[in-house]
């Protein structure tokens, strides 16, 4: 059954938790990350298109925050991890994504003028 709630936090809470040693997992595709990325110490990139085969690279014993552009793909990725054995209390989605992260003025690498809003993984 799916009687669980996927935890979500905003970019500001995510930023504040960085000092606690959380790991960000960016599920955007490599071309998107190449243009603009989160400038944080603990982050890995596993694109949605590779997540099914690479999710084991994500440690189960750390607090994980899943991120993408607007928080929809990362929400699906968070659900996928929980369905595949990750603790619902250790895997969290960052809602509103990189777009809100940039709006809040948090650090990035790349050109924020060209931020590409790519909503969800719908239809490939």
């Amino acid at each position, binding site marked *: 059954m799916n009687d669980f709630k996927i935890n979500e936090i905003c970019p500001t809470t995510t930023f504040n938790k960085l000092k606690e040693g959380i790991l960000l997992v960016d599920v955007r595709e490599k071309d998107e990350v190449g243009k603009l990325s989160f400038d944080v110490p603990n982050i890995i990139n596993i694109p*949605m298109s590779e997540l*099914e085969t690479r999710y084991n690279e994500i440690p189960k014993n750390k607090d994980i925050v899943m991120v993408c552009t607007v928080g929809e793909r990362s929400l*699906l990725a968070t659900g996928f991890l929980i369905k595949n054995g990750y603790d619902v209390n250790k895997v969290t989605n960052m809602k509103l994504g990189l777009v809100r992260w940039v709006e809040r003025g948090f650090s990035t690498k790349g050109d924020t003028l060209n931020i590409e809003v790519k909503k969800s*993984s719908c239809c490939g």
Partner: protein
Amino acid sequence: MKSVKVLGPGCTKCKNLEKNVRDAVAKLTGNYKVEKIEDFQEMAKYGLLSSPGLVIDEKLISAGKVQSVEELVELLK
């Protein structure tokens, strides 16, 4: 009653799968409850990575695929 859910935010493929599901159900006898789920929080709980998703009796059958009416009739029998 068999529960059938189409998971998708409203793109063309999602709409096509919903239509095909409803057409398939119309060809079948028996009780079916067809629902379209567009809420990402609800969708995510099924563990799909791409939409549309097809859920039959709470089990995720496929993700990112639009089955034909004929295929769905077989799946839903």
